[in-house]
């Protein structure tokens, strides 16, 4: 024994017992790099897939709810018994919403055209309607700074959005025309047309400021698109009902029920898919790892032959499995968040927010799977004599 080797042996003899355990763990991973890497790879893939699926499952609701807000209002405020809403109601609605949605007021009267035809004229804030009712097909929205002066005569111009069915009746050549309501006249200039396939097509839309000064009527309806889950929308509804006692607050039930159904079914499908995929990934890890542990039955036999206790052996393989599971889970978690974010961007044009709550679940699941796949073959091998294994039988 060389001098050097004796020194080495001496230092090792004084080192604490744990270092041998650690060295065995590290050596096992380093010496069989290929197999350890493939086991780790399987673990990373499984954890990544599980993370991505769980993240999507949690986030898809918020994503789809946003899509459903394009259907427009889910709450409608109307004055009790058909009365107008008191002044300042819109400001109250806005403060109750606090950015969790959008509200748009509508005032409606039946006016008459120059030749005495009755027609519904609505007063709206074009900016808000544009945000609330995405499906309106509008040829050109009226400019929103109002009033603006027409260039030639210095007169105040009142832009109007004309429903496609009303257009041939009121302004076939797109010329300005007069509207009268209770003897008062309003000279309006068509700015564009609106098409929706519903009642809007037969109406005229003027700005709310013009509407109030001309007809002397305050808006009677406020349509609200509140964002969030069903419970959050319900909370907004009670809040609105308390804040504005003069108004009747109604849910738009067709939108709410449709949304609830589609969301529920999509989430259920996603859950089923997640369960299947995670199960497959877990089994993949299980088979790879069990193969790896089985392959090392010689190591196992040598350790046993050298006098390692059952406890130490179990501890060794369990620690190895736990380390593998934890490492795989951490890397897989990061990869999975990346996948979920990419799916969010590709499909919903908004990234999926990483949910840290998923991490403990993935971590615990990964370690459970790796522990099972390590302990199972060990408990089989334990019954076998080391000599039999070492002889390669």
């Amino acid at each position, binding site marked *: 024994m060389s001098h050097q080797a004796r020194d080495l042996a001496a230092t090792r003899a004084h080192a604490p017992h744990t270092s041998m355990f650690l060295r065995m763990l590290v050596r096992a991973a380093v010496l069989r790099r290929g197999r350890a890497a493939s086991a780790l790879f399987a673990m990373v893939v499984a954890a990544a897939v599980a993370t991505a699926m769980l993240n999507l499952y949690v986030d898809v609701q918020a994503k789809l709810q946003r899509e459903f807000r394009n259907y427009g209002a889910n709450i409608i405020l109307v004055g009790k018994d058909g009365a107008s809403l008191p002044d300042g109601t819109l400001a109250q609605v806005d403060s109750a919403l606090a950015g969790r949605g959008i509200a748009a007021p509508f005032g409606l009267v039946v006016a008459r055209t120059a030749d005495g035809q009755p027609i519904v004229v609505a007063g709206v804030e074009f900016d808000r309607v544009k945000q609330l009712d995405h*499906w309106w097909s509008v040829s050109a929205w009226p400019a929103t700074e109002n009033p603006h002066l027409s260039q030639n005569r210095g007169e105040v111009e009142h832009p109007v959005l004309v429903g496609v069915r009303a257009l041939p009746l009121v302004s076939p050549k797109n010329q300005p025309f007069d509207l009268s309501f209770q003897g008062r006249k309003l000279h309006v200039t068509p700015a564009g047309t609106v098409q929706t396939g519903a009642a809007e097509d037969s109406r005229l839309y003027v700005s709310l400021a013009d509407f109030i000064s001309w007809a002397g009527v305050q808006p009677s309806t406020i349509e609200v698109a509140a964002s969030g889950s069903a419970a959050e929308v319900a909370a907004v509804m009670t809040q609105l009902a308390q804040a504005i006692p003069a108004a009747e607050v109604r849910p738009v039930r*067709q939108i709410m029920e449709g949304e609830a159904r589609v969301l529920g079914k999509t989430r259920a499908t996603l859950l089923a898919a997640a369960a299947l995929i995670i199960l*497959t990934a877990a089994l993949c890890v299980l088979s790879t790892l069990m*193969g790896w542990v089985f392959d090392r039955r010689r190591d196992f036999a040598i350790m046993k032959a050298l006098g390692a206790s059952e406890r130490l052996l179990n501890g060794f393989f369990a620690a190895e499995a736990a380390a593998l599971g934890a490492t795989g889970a951490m890397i897989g978690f990061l990869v999975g968040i990346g996948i979920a974010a990419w799916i969010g961007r590709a499909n919903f044009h908004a990234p999926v927010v990483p949910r840290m709550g998923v991490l403990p679940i993935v971590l615990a699941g990964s370690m459970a799977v790796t522990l099972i796949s390590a302990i199972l073959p060990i408990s089989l091998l334990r019954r076998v004599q080391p000599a039999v294994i070492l002889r390669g039988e």
Partner: protein
Amino acid sequence: MFVRLVYESFRRQKRRKVLAGAAITLGVTVATAMIAVATDIGDKINRELRTIGANLVVTPQEDSLDVEIGGVNLKPPTDGAFLSEADLPKIKGIFWHNNIVGFAPILPVSAAIPHEGKPQDVTLTGTYFAKKVSYGNEEFVTGAKTLYPWWKVSGAWPDDNSRDVLIGERLAAKLNQKPGNTITISGRQCRIDGILSTGGAEDDEVIAPLSLAQEILGKPDAVKRVYVSALTKPEDAFARRDPKSLSGAIYDRWYCTPYPQAIALQLTEAMSHSHAEQIRQVAQNEGAVLTRIEGLIFLITLAALFASGLAVSAAMATAIFERRAEVGLMKALGAGKLAVASVFFAEAALMALIGGAVGFGIGSALAHQIGHSIFNSQISISPVLLPVILAIAVIVTFAGSAMAIRRAVSLDPVFALRGEL
């Protein structure tokens, strides 16, 4: 000899074959189920979206302007043009008749109900509740009940051939009426079958069978509007093109795609003097929601295919790695690399075929179960998919085994037999 090698391998190493076969079966099961769900999800979600109500409306072509606020028509209802009720069954005769989920005609008339001594003006809307309509040999039931699932009726739905009515909840409270009462509507005795709650304008109305509304209006066969609920394909740039500008084959393609526009055109053709249009609030948005959900499930299916591919590869790699000694023996007896590899590939192919077929069966059952428990309807899986799935299974199994087989055949038989590797 070759066949015997493969056969004996299956006969003697049952445990390993079962393990690898189980992995293939599971992988194919997941792949089949996910593909089946992904191909059907659009149709399923489309049907769920129909709970939001009609996406198409048919109106008379020469109609005068509606003067309507909050669902209350302020014009004399005799005004304007009408559609013919006799034309309604033709809706089920259009090219995309299978995509028509339901339709309901609407005829609003004003009626008077005596209340506390004086007549009260109300809007009475005539419609179908669950009317049996037949077109050709086909019989189907359609009406408000299928079209508006969010209509809640406390009491019973009236019969379409009766004079029973539904009364909106706000109107019922105002008139102090409840189900079972008999009221006089414009001089006719009608029984209230139920109280209707919709959260919309109908809460202030009387909803009656279409024939009663026609009788009050004095115009048999008249219908003001028809609301149609149809399964449509999300609109794209092609859908928005003007059909009049399209020629021959391109026009046919446009016409034979269930775009909202194409179905609207077919409805216009089916009913005389009519004009059909999409209700943009419903039609436009369902396209967006549908595209998102389909995209999501498609991406997840890719993930599932990837995961199952990986599971199969891992199982195959492990199975082959365990058989180093066998490879060593074969090589020591003089087998070439090609001969050894072909034995393994033949085994892999055989397992892929068996596992694939079993997995396809289980996967179909699983898809069926998912469809049943989530959507309450069948997810059909076409048998055409079987060869595709089998081919994928064989390819994935080959790909998964290739690396392991390459390593196995390049082993030095001496080391392999001594178990040192």
